[in-house]
C-alpha cells in the first residue's frame, strides 16, 4: 500500500527585481520643499539587514535643522495651508495617494531592501494600505464639519511626528494623511534604520506640487526626535514606538500645551477556545506573531489555548511553522524576512536565551537561515509562566509564548494581567463568547476569528502602557483638530 517514492519538490528562487529602483547614494533633509544639507555635516548609513550592505547615506539632523523645519512648517501653516479650502487640501492628498499607487512597486522594493520585511508583505500590505490612508483622509478634508457635527473644528498648527522602523511608509501615511486633511503642517522623523521610504515619499510629495513647508522630513537618531519633542513652536506630538521613549516624551512635554498621542508597545493575547475553527486559528496564530518577523506592536505574542485542544493546536502550529519560508526578503515566496537591525536581533536572541535558561520547552522551525544578514527562526516557548520575563516584556520578534487555560474567567484575568493593552484576538465559533470577551478584554483592538487586520476606516490604539489616542478612522482625524 505504501508506495512512497517521495519526490522532493522545492521551489526555485523567485527574486523580485530591484533594477527599476532609483536610490541616491546620499540623502539630505527635506525642509521647506528643498533638499538641505544637515547643519552638522554628519551622515549615517542605511543598511540592508538581509545582507548587511550599505544602501545610502542619510543626513543626521540636529536642533538647528529641526528648528529650520519647524519654522518652515509654521510659515506654510500661517500663510498657505490653513488658508486653503478643505477641497483644495483634499486634492493634494488624492494626488499623493495616486502617486503612491503609481510608484507602488518601487516603494515596495525599497521598503524590503531597507527594512528586511518580505516583498510579499510590503507589496500586498504596507504600500497599498499607505495609499489607502491618503485616499481615506483625502475624502474627509472638505467634510470636517460633518465629521464632527455641532462643534467648531479647527486645525492645531504644526505637528511633530516620530515614527518607528517596523512599518516605515505606512506609519508615515498614518501620521501625515490625517494631519494634512485636518489642515495642519508637519515635521516628521523616520527611524534611523529605515529612512529611505520616507525620503522617497518626500520626493513624491515634491512631485505632487504640495506647497513648500507643509511636509518636512528630518532624518536622524533619538537626539533629532528629542529636538522635535522639545521645540517650543510645535502644537502636537504624535509618536509611535517603544513604551520607554513614550514615557520620556510625556515627561518632556509636561507643563506645555502640546497635544500628545502615543502608540506604544504591546504584549497582546491571542485566545483560542475549544470550539474555534482550529486550522484557521492556527493560521491566525501564525499571522499574529510571525507577520513582519514579529516586529508588530500589536503582535499576538501571548497565546492562550484552551486545555482540551492545546495538544492539537501546538502540533498543528509546529507543522505549519515548518512550511514557512524564512530567508531572502526579496524572494516572492518568502514568508519571514530579515530582522530589522543587528541591535534588534541581539534583543530577540537575549530573550530566547532567557527562555532556554528558565527551562521552558522551546520549538524552532527546522529551516536553514542565510549565512549573512540578521535572521531569526520562528520560535515557540510552551507552557511559560505568567511571571516569566518572556510573558511580561515585549520582545518585538518572532517569539511566541504559549499558556493553556480552562475557564473563560481565567483567560480574561491572565490576558488583562499585563502593563500593556494594545490588541487581542479571540477564536471561537460562538458569537456570544466573542461579545463577552470584547467587553472585558482591556485592549484597544480585539479581533474575532482573525488577527492583524488593518483598515484606514478603523481606529487603532492602546490602553495602559500601550499609549493613548487613536489613529485611523474618525478618531484619528479628531486627534489633529482642536
Amino acid at each position, binding site marked *: 500500500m505504501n*508506495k512512497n517514492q517521495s519526490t522532493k*519538490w522545492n521551489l526555485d528562487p*523567485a527574486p523580485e527585481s530591484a533594477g527599476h529602483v532609483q536610490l541616491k547614494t546620499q540623502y539630505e533633509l527635506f525642509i521647506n520643499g528643498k533638499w538641505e544639507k544637515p547643519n552638522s555635516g554628519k551622515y549615517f548609513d542605511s543598511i540592508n539587514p538581509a545582507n548587511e550592505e550599505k544602501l545610502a547615506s542619510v543626513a543626521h539632523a540636529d536642533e538647528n535643522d529641526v528648528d529650520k523645519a519647524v519654522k518652515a512648517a509654521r510659515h506654510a501653516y500661517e500663510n498657505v495651508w490653513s488658508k486653503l479650502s478643505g477641497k483644495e487640501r483634499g486634492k493634494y492628498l488624492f494626488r499623493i495617494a495616486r502617486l503612491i499607487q503609481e510608484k507602488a512597486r518601487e516603494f515596495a522594493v525599497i521598503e524590503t531592501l531597507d527594512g528586511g520585511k518580505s516583498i510579499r508583505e510590503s507589496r500586498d500590505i504596507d504600500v497599498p494600505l499607505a495609499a489607502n490612508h491618503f485616499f481615506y483622509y483625502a475624502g474627509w478634508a472638505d467634510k470636517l464639519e460633518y465629521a464632527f457635527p455641532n462643534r467648531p473644528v479647527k486645525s492645531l498648527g504644526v505637528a511633530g511626528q516620530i515614527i518607528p522602523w517596523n512599518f516605515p511608509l505606512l506609519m508615515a501615511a498614518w501620521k501625515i494623511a490625517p494631519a494634512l486633511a485636518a489642515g495642519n503642517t508637519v515635521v516628521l522623523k523616520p527611524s534611523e534604520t529605515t529612512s529611505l521610504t520616507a525620503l522617497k515619499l518626500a520626493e513624491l510629495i515634491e512631485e505632487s506640487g504640495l506647497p513648500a513647508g507643509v511636509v518636512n522630513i528630518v532624518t536622524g537618531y533619538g537626539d533629532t526626535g528629542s529636538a522635535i519633542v522639545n521645540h517650543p513652536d510645535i502644537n502636537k506630538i504624535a509618536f509611535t514606538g517603544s513604551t520607554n521613549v513614550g514615557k520620556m516624551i510625556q515627561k518632556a512635554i509636561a507643563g506645555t500645551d502640546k497635544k500628545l498621542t502615543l502608540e506604544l508597545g504591546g504584549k497582546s493575547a491571542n485566545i483560542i477556545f475549544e470550539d474555534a475553527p482550529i486550522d484557521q486559528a492556527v493560521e491566525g496564530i501564525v499571522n499574529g506573531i510571525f507577520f513582519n518577523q514579529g516586529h508588530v506592536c500589536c503582535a499576538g505574542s501571548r497565546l492562550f489555548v484552551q486545555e482540551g485542544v492545546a495538544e492539537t493546536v501546538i*502540533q498543528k502550529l509546529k507543522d505549519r511553522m515548518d512550511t514557512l519560508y524564512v530567508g531572502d526578503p526579496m524572494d516572492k515566496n518568502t514568508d519571514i524576512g530579515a530582522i530589522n537591525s543587528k541591535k534588534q536581533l541581539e534583543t530577540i536572541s537575549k530573550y530566547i536565551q532567557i527562555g532556554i535558561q528558565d527551562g521552558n520547552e522551546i520549538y524552532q522551525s527546522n529551516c536553514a537561515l542565510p549565512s549573512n544578514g540578521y535572521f531569526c527562526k520562528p520560535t515557540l516557548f510552551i507552557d511559560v509562566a505568567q511571571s516569566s520575563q518572556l510573558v511580561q516584556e515585549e520582545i518585538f520578534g518572532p517569539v511566541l509564548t504559549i499558556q493553556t487555560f480552562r475557564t473563560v474567567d481565567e483567560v480574561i484575568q491572565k490576558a488583562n494581567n499585563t502593563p500593556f493593552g494594545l490588541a487581542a484576538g479571540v477564536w471561537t465559533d460562538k458569537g456570544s463568547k466573542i461579545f463577552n470577551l470584547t467587553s472585558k478584554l482591556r485592549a484597544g483592538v480585539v479581533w474575532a476569528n482573525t488577527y492583524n487586520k488593518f483598515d484606514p476606516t478603523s481606529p487603532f490604539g492602546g490602553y495602559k502602557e500601550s499609549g493613548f489616542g487613536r489613529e485611523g478612522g474618525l478618531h484619528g482625524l479628531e486627534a489633529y483638530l482642536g
Partner: protein
Amino acid sequence: MSTKQKDIQIPDFRFTPTIDKVGVEERVARIQTRSIKGESKIQGMKMVLNMIDLTTLEGKDTPGKVKQMCYKAQHLHEAYPDCPTVAAVCVYPSMVKIAKEALGNSNVKVASVSTAFPSGQAPREVKIMDTKFAVEQGADEIDMVISRGKFLSGEYNFVFDEIAAIKEACGKARLKVILETGELVTLDNVRKASEIAMYAGADFIKTSTGKIQPAATMQVTYVMLMAIKDYFNKTGIMIGMKPAGGISTSKLALHNLLMVKETLGENWLDNHWFRFGASSLANDVLMQLMKSKTGVYQSGDYFSLD
C-alpha cells in the same frame, strides 16, 4: 469495513470540527501568491501530467472515443521527450472493458464511475450492482458518489453505511468517494462529508462529479486536505485526494500541488495519493512545457484533442 480500519473508533459526525470560510479563503490566497518558476515549474508540471485522471463522462461516449483517449493517456505529446503518462482514464462502467483492452499492460489505471453517477439517485442494490459490474469489467478504481440528499437531511449513518457497502463491493479496486461539494454548499459540510467518507473506508476523497458548479475550488480542496491530515494524525492511514472539475490551467494545477505540499507534505506528491480529475488540463500543461522548451507558445492546433 476494511480490516485496516477495524480498530478505529468512529467519531460522532454531528460534531466535526468547524471551518471558518474567511480564514480558508485567506490561506488559499496566500498559496496563490506563491511564485513557481524555472526547474521547479517544469518538475511540477510533469508531476501534474502524471497525476491526471483523463476523463470522458458523456452520454454520447463511443468505444472509438474511449480508445483514442486511452492512446493519448500513454502518449501525451510525442514532440516532448520523456513525457510521463497520465495516472488513469476515467469512464462509465460500460466503457471499462474497452479502456482496459486499449491500455493493455501499461501502468495507466482504469477508473470507473459508479453508483448511479452523477446523481446517485438509485437504490443501494442498484449501486452495488453497478459497482460490481465495473469491477468485473476490470476497473482498478471506482469513483462513487455519495447520497447528497441523505447527507443534507442529516442521515449520516445512511451515507456511512452506503460507502462501506460499496467499499465491500469494490474488492481490490481502490474506492474514490465523490462528495459533490457544489451541492453540499458549506465548508462545514465538506469537512463532515470528508470524515464520513474516510471513516467508512474511502481510499480517496474526491470533490466533484464535474457535472455541478462550483466544483474543485481551492477552498474546498484545502478543507478536504486538512481533513485527510487530521485523519492521518489520528489513525496513521494515508487517504488520497482528487480535486475534479474546473482545474483547466497549469497555474491552478501547480498551486493545487503546492497546497498539497504545504498541508500534507511531500509524501502525498505521487499519483498513488493525489489525482486531478480533468479533461482539458493536460493540453494546457503540455503547451506550457513546450513553451519552456521552445520559448514560444504554440497554437492549440499543435496539441491533440482526444
